[in-house]
């Protein structure tokens, strides 16, 4: 009993330390838009500025170019949704098949997937651009969406999950019951793998939402930009980071912080939603039932 209490106290101390480590920067970020640029420097770093300053900050950002930031936001949303949907449709059956079927080429596919995943991106800039350009898609949303559908991480996670947590006996039993292979995938594997699928969907959404380099090289039109590239262009022109703002644009550090909150909010909402499902299915239980 006493041992249990100490370990639980130890756990709580660990959690408090963890939260302090990871949350300090975030608390600062949450408070930053309530301060002016100068207040960021001379107020206590974790002090609250004022609501009126927050209003000014929000207005400076949201009114820039008649609210073009909402266009960027909307672009990010739909590029992400389309890209992630295709990525999942491609990855889930693939990961399952690689784990649960034996066929020639299985190892080759896994190994090639690995190699393409760890190729440093600097070598891929030109080839991807040339491909998209060859089919006339540069500076269209598809130049960002299509390359984003390649999601090897998702394939590997599904593969590992299927191999580790789904016994072959479940699948064999379904086959003996006369289920089709597609039916087994959809009605047996997918429900069992829900935590893994939710997880890779979440990481895919984050990856696509935060994707910078692909839209950066592919898109030039202002109205096609994503939140990430649009903000970067804005920030780099106003020297809001590590330089002077030599322009008339009212974008400074607080506005950047506000933009950051705007861009991480959807991710956090998705995370909170996904969190419920991250620890769910128990393959063993399903086998019994």
């Amino acid at each position, binding site marked *: 009993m006493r041992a249990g209490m100490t370990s639980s106290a130890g756990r709580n101390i660990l959690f408090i330390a963890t939260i302090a480590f990871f949350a300090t920067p975030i608390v600062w970020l949450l408070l930053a838009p309530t301060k*002016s*640029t*100068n*207040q960021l*420097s*001379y*107020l206590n770093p974790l002090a609250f500025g004022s609501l009126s300053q927050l209003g000014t900050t929000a207005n400076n950002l949201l009114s820039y*170019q008649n609210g073009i930031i909402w266009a960027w936001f909307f672009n990010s949303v739909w590029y992400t949704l389309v890209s992630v949907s295709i990525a999942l449709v491609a990855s889930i059956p693939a990961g399952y098949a690689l784990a649960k079927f034996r066929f020639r080429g299985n190892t080759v596919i896994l190994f090639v997937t690995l190699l393409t995943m760890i190729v440093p991106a600097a070598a891929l*800039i*030109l080839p991807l*651009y*040339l*491909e*998209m*350009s*060859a*089919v*006339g*898609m*540069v500076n*269209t949303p*598809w130049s960002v969406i*299509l390359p984003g559908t390649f999601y090897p991480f998702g394939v590997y996670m599904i593969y590992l999950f299927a191999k580790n947590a789904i016994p072959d006996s479940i699948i064999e039993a379904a086959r003996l019951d006369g289920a089709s292979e597609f039916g087994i995938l959809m009605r047996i594997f997918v429900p069992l793998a829900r935590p893994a699928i939710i997880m890779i969907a979440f990481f895919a959404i984050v990856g696509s939402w935060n994707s910078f380099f692909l839209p*950066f*090289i592919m898109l*030039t*039109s*202002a109205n096609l*930009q994503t939140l990430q*590239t649009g903000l*970067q*262009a*804005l920030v*780099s*022109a*106003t*020297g809001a980071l*590590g*330089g*002077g*703002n*030599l*322009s*008339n*644009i009212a974008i400074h550090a607080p506005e950047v912080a506000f933009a950051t909150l705007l861009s991480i909010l959807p991710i956090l909402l998705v995370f909170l939603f996904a969190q419920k499902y991250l620890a769910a299915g128990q393959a063993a239980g399903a086998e019994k039932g």
Partner: protein
Amino acid sequence: MRTSKAAIAIAIGAFLAVGTVGCAASSGGTPASDPKAPITVWVDAARLPQAQAYAKAHPDVTIKIDVISGAQNANTQKISLAKKAGTPLPDVVFLGSPDEIANLTANPLNFPLALNTVVPKKVIDSFPQGVLARCSYGGQVYCLGNDVGQTVLFYNKPLFDQWGYAVPKTFAEFEQLGAKLAAEHPGYNLGTVNGRYGVDAFFESSGCPILDTTSDTAVKINVSSSKCTRVGDVIGPMIKNGSLSTLDLFDKTYDQQVAQGKVVAMVGASWIGDFAFKPMTTNAGTSFDSTGKYAVAPMPTWSGESTNWSGSVGGGIWVVSRTTKNSKAAVAFAQDMTTSPTIAKAQTTYPAYGPSADIWLNAKATDPWYAADPSSVLKAAASKINPAEGYTRYVTQMLDSFNNTVIKNGATDMSSALTQWGQQTADAAKSAGYTVSK
């Protein structure tokens, strides 16, 4: 192997394209001066309103405006990719990091149009020589200056008066002032020498051959020249006694020193008053209000020179593509962006074009932030930018190396720090495809 895979890739891509996008960008074979051809201009976010205003005022030309990141080499990268892919290039580009032009003029891009052939000589001659010299190769001028960051000496006039300091006329006096300041008022400083602020304000004004381009593929680097060592002799002791800071001008820690009024003087670009000192010190809450405190004095003179040369920190440029299909409209656009009186009035920093600068200075002359009218000093400095330096493809590496050698070790052993800096910069220049000579 490669070709078959690539063929598959393209075939599949084409298949996907059918259902998704109707048609690819068409490429017509129109001549270079087709007055009906639309032009595409690439600007940064700050230049967007003036470009939009121009497009509105010129409905006869179709102008497509794209906003490109002002990050170093963002334009180069996009142009380079488009060139490789054979897709249309922009007609006019604004470069907020003007060194990018060294990439654009070189292989494999060969992008800019020589402007001295299409812009009237009178207009070209109204830019300070030091500005256009930087983007000129083989007698051809490849850019029009947007603004210029000529360096001058900012000083806190009331403090100078109070402490009985004389404004230094030479860099020897500047160094003596530093020694005096360090002894009498430790914690105060005479500016910063980090990165481009140090290189441009000190080494460039001295004419130290470190970015001395003789063509777009040849450069002179010689840090053992007296034009470099005399700079080391001044800044070395000053870094050591703390009268020169080694922090970046916009480092948060240095900001606080500015905000506390610890910066007594600074050799800096024409814009540091309006865009560094002013915003850091005039809002409520700071202990030091700089309004009416800082005045500008002419650059100190380097020993052995008869002219008090300036350096230049920053300053954007406009470039026109040699592949433009409507060169008339493209050149007219670039020219208007640099010479329009309306734009000059709205310009935030010192305009490069002479007549525009005069308009701009009229407003600046009565700015109550300055302790005295800065206009004549700024104007004189713009015409004295040392033409020894050019735009290069290795400037980032040169600055990295500068901070790693001169800034880091200059206080203890300036001469070997300089040697190292020169060596690393020469390596960087060679790696960027330059022939290096002394």
